């Protein structure tokens, strides 16, 4: 286990499995279910571990998300308790003290207040507030002030209108939109420490199953961390309005086994594949505006404005998750980006068929 401030044990995921906690967890889970009355909503709410296509924060798969989840159960249970008590009081008063047809027409006793009662409903809420504050402060400290072991993966995430740049300074390569991190085994944790920067407007990094959101703000360095416990594909998206295509600034986090992650980093470090069969397409790329915005390592294209395309085909989607990465979509994207993502900053390249075909073939070769 990587070290955390010793006086704060809650951050240790194993502690959350202690019997006392799980009893609280059960009560709180029951409370939660009745609160939203959504037992019938099926897989969206089920606490099945692992990645899901619904980024539910009630289905955490990483320590910060779990810490928040357990706090949220506690807070929701308290709120549900308050709700049941006060709501019953309101309904009781509203029904019991309604004017009845048999009413004698006299005014009811005029009561101006009661010091004891008023004191009680001042002091009890204060106590509840103190408890809530302490519970929240503990999790704030556990998540924000965590310290990292030397083997933590370092990633710099840079928000752009409307895509994500991911730099891996420890490995020396750059990729986009799909963040690969290794799974973090509880016995041998490999958390990922993410530095958050912005190249233009505000953005926010939010993958609910892995951690709470933190904003990416220009001229400011923010940090967060995740330690996913299960291999798979986690989804999220930008959570701070950043301009026209805020909605299609999607986030995909691929959590790999240590072996797959090692393989992936090895592949990403190599320069782009150079195949003679697609030399015509490469020429189109290098003699058009493509190279002003995109980098392909090993070629003269070193633009920084758009995503790095060195290993484009290692990604499952294009346009920050807006479309699957297929030949047809790549072609459409180059020809008419607004058809996929209206308002994005990629210009329509105005290429004729003669150029378009080899260019797409070249892009398809960037494994």
């Amino acid at each position, binding site marked *: 286990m990587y070290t955390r401030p010793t006086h704060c044990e809650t951050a240790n995921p194993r502690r959350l499995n202690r019997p006392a906690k799980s009893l609280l967890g059960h009560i709180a889970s029951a409370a939660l279910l009745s609160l*939203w009355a959504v037992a019938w*909503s099926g897989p969206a709410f089920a606490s099945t571990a692992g990645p899901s296509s*619904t*980024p539910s*924060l*009630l289905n955490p798969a990483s320590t910060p*998300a779990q810490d*928040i989840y357990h*706090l*949220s159960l506690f807070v929701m249970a308290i*709120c549900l308790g308050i*709700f049941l008590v*006060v*709501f019953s009081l*309101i309904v009781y*008063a*509203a029904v019991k*003290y309604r*004017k009845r047809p048999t*009413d004698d027409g006299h005014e*009811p006793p*005029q*009561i*101006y*207040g*009661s010091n004891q009662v*008023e004191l009680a*409903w*001042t002091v009890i809420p*204060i106590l509840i507030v103190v408890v*809530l*504050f302490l519970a*929240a*402060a503990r*999790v*704030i400290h556990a*998540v924000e*002030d965590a310290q990292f072991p030397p083997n933590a993966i370092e990633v710099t995430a840079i928000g752009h209108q409307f895509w994500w740049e991911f730099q891996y300074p420890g490995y020396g390569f750059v990729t986009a939109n799909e963040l690969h991190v290794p799974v973090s085994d509880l016995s041998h944790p490999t958390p990922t420490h993410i530095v958050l920067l912005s190249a233009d*407007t*505000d953005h*926010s990094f939010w993958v*609910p199953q892995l*951690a*709470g*959101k*933190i904003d990416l*703000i*220009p*001229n*400011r360095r*923010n*940090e967060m961390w995740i330690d996913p416990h299960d291999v798979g594909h986690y989804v999220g998206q930008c959570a*701070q309005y*950043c301009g*026209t295509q*805020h*909605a*299609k600034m999607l986030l995909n986090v691929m959590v790999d086994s240590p072996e797959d992650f090692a393989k992936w980093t090895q592949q990403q470090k190599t320069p782009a594949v150079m195949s003679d069969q697609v030399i015509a397409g490469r020429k189109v790329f290098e003699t058009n505006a493509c190279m002003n915005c995109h980098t392909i390592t090993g070629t003269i294209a070193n633009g920084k404005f758009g995503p790095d395309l060195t290993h484009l085909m290692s990604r499952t989607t294009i346009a920050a998750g807006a479309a699957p990465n297929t030949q047809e979509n790549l072609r459409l994207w180059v020809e008419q980006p607004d058809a996929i993502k*209206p*308002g994005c900053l990629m210009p329509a390249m105005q290429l004729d068929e003669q150029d378009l075909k080899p260019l797409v073939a070249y892009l398809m070769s960037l494994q």
Partner: protein
Amino acid sequence: MADAQPILPALVISPERESSRPLVQVLHDWMVTVDHKRLGLMYFSYGIVFLVIGGVEASIMRAQLAVANNHLVSPEVFNRLFTMHGTTMIFFAAMPIVFGFANYLVPLMIGARDMAFPRLNAWGFWMSALGGIILYFSFIGGFGLYGAGSAPDVGWFAYAPLTSPAFSVGHSTDYWIVGILVSGFGSIATALNVMTTILCLRCPGMKLSRMPLFVWMNSVMAALVLVAIGPLTAAQLMLLIDRYLGGHFFDTQAGGSAVIWMHFFWIFGHPEVYILVLPAFAIVSEVIPVFSRKPIFGYSIMVAATVSIGFISLGVWAHHLFTIGMTSYANAFFVASTAAIAVPTGIKIFNWVGTMWGGKIIYQVAMLFCVAFLCQFLIAGLTGIMLSAAPFDWQLGNSYFVVAHFHYVILGGIVMAVFAGTYYWYPKVIGKMMNETLGKWHFWLFVIGFHLTFDFMHIPGLLGMPRRIYTYEASRGWEIWNVIISVGVIFQAIGVLLWVANVIWSYYKGEIAGNDPWDAWTLEWHTTSPPPDYNYAEIPVIRSRRPLWDLKHPEDPDWKYE
């Protein structure tokens, strides 16, 4: 004092206004009026017009979001819609409506003949009106992000650097800035006026401790406006300097700070919530006692809670900024201050229930809305407590859970109270009763629609749906909830239309109300309906918080117990 009675003058029937005057003359009268009642009505009507416009904008957004991957509106249009909806509802619907209530009722309730500064009052109204017109002129005159299309599209809190010239190249953001700036001047004028009126024009006998809670709560509202609008105005001026004079306050590309804008905006933005909700509390604090036939429970602690809400609300703004990477100490501080505000708010809810307890509650439509208000404001407060726990907010912030939460506050709380207030004071203002049957239809349709929309809106938030997205993938599992949310809008829209219809129908066909149809206790019911221009021919003298109770129950007057 030998005479145990409050000295309330006899009623004077105001002379009939000439009804045969030409329309131009009538319009001219309204344009140049400095009468607080006319200005109050104008504030209110102006707010209602924008409430309907903002509601139409919301309905279009809900139609777009009802199904996944919808193409009803483009992302550009959607972004304008949510920007205009938020700005309109806060600045040009909610604020004019609460100012309308304060303007009309505060002088009547404290036994004054007008506001302290009638001409400043008119100036304030026309500045606010001008602000709304400037904002909406942007549909004609302004271009948005990348010069495309019209109307502001930077979000109602307009985070830098999206508003900087680099990202918002047209003039739509300028219309947004100037519109809010100008209406802010109007708000400050009105707040100054309300405050001065309350401090200086109370009738003899009305000590601060005898003011109706409505007046107390509006005085705290006015104080908050005076404190909160200043930072907003300053921020808008700085933004204008950035955009036109080469300043770099928020221009991050030249080293400016995006975070400073956030602090400026929310140092206004959070007190603003209480600026809107305190007048709602004020309405509920008058309606519940009258329809429960009991005085307000715990008057003193209600006043104390109101004042402490005012103070605490100035120190909670950064709970809007839990996700910007503040230190753990700063986050913990704002958790504490935010959770603390739940205490005085809770006291209020308990005291309202205490007022109903042991009463004989009459369920006129006004009271129905107050009961709905209590239940909904309770839930709004509890989701607020959830959001105040910073780590939970890291998940819920900027999600649909937050959208559901603050609509619970604004619609479930403030708008419900405004509905209650119209049913309660309409007889005084117009002189005729509103239709109870139509009112009950309005109530049930609106409440059902409200719960369909906003109860279910919490769920996509928990399932990771961020706000301000114009569409989403079906695979996310959010679609079913969005369908339900959008269906609720239909009910709410019909409810609001019935309300407007009721207001108009009752103006022509309503039963004559008389001076005091609810058998109420505050001074405004001791003048004609509608009140004469001068409100009171003789200034009343009072001896307790409920002067009309004393008058009606000489054998058991309030002043013996206070």
